[in-house]
C-alpha cells in the first residue's frame, strides 16, 4: 500500500464516526465512508498536499453523506423515534414559564477558547435522538439551509423547524448539564 493509501485508511475510523453521527445508521455510514475512501484513492493527485488530508477527506465525505441521505430519504423521513414533546414539558410549566430559569453562561470567549468545550459539544450532538440529530447535523455540519433539508428529506418546513427547535433545546440542556454545571437557583421568570 502506498503512503497515501495508508494515510487515508488511518483516517477511516474518524470518518466512520462522523458518518454515523450524521446518518445514525451503520450500514449507510459504511457505504458513505467506503465511497469516500474509493474516491480519494482513485484521484490522489486531487489532494496534492492542499491543507490537511483529513479536511480534504471530510469534504468528500460530506458529499457522499448527502448522497446517502438522498438515497434513503424515504426511510429517514418515515422514522419517528422523536419524543420531542418531552423536552418542552421538562423545561416549562403549564403556564409557559420556566420551571428553572436558564443559567448565566458567562463570557462566550472564555468558553470557546477551551478545546474541551468542543469535545463536550460533540458528545451532546452525538446524543441527540435520531431524527433530531440527523437534521441538526444536516443544518449545522453539512451547512444545508432549511429549504435544502426539506427537499432532501421530503418534509415540510414546519416539520424541519420543529425538529431543529427540539434539537437546539436539547443541546442547550446538555451543555448546561455537562459543561456549565448545575442549573442556577430559580430566578423569577415572567410567565
Amino acid at each position, binding site marked *: 500500500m502506498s503512503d497515501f493509501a495508508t494515510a487515508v485508511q488511518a483516517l477511516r475510523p474518524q470518518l466512520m464516526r*462522523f458518518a454515523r453521527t450524521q446518518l445514525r445508521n451503520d450500514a449507510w455510514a459504511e457505504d458513505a465512508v467506503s465511497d469516500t475512501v474509493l474516491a480519494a484513492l482513485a484521484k490522489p493527485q486531487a489532494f496534492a498536499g492542499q491543507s*490537511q488530508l*483529513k*479536511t480534504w477527506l*471530510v469534504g468528500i465525505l460530506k458529499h457522499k453523506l448527502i448522497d446517502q441521505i438522498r438515497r434513503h430519504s424515504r426511510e429517514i423521513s418515515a422514522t419517528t423515534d422523536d419524543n420531542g414533546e418531552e423536552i*418542552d414539558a421538562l*423545561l*416549562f410549566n403549564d*403556564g*409557559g*414559564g*420556566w420551571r428553572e*430559569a*436558564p*443559567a*448565566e*453562561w458567562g463570557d*462566550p470567549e472564555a*468558553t*470557546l477558547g477551551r*478545546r474541551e*468545550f*468542543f469535545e463536550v*459539544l*460533540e458528545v451532546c*450532538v452525538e446524543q441527540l435522538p435520531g431524527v433530531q440529530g440527523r437534521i441538526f447535523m444536516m*443544518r*449545522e*455540519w453539512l*451547512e444545508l439551509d*432549511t429549504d435544502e433539508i426539506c427537499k432532501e428529506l421530503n418534509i415540510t*418546513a414546519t416539520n*424541519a*423547524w420543529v425538529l*431543529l*427547535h427540539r434539537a*437546539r*433545546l436539547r*443541546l*442547550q440542556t446538555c*451543555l448546561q448539564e455537562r459543561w456549565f454545571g448545575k442549573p442556577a437557583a430559580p*430566578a*423569577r*421568570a*415572567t*410567565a
Partner: protein
Amino acid sequence: MTMNFLQRNCRQVTALVLAGEDRRLGLFERWAVRAHLKVCTACPRFYRQVALMRKALPRWRAYRDTAD
C-alpha cells in the same frame, strides 16, 4: 394603546428565539421577543445562551473537521 397582541410567555419566546436560528422572524415576532426580553429576567439569559451556541457551532465544525 395596549400591546397585548405582542404578549408571549417564556415558552413561546424561547421558541421564537430558537426559530430565529433557522428562519427570518416576522416583524411582530421580533417585536414580541424584544418586548418580552425587556421585562423577563430568565429569557435574556436563554437568549445569550443561544448566541453562545451560534458562535460555537462554526468553531465546532472547524474543530471536528481539522483536529487530529
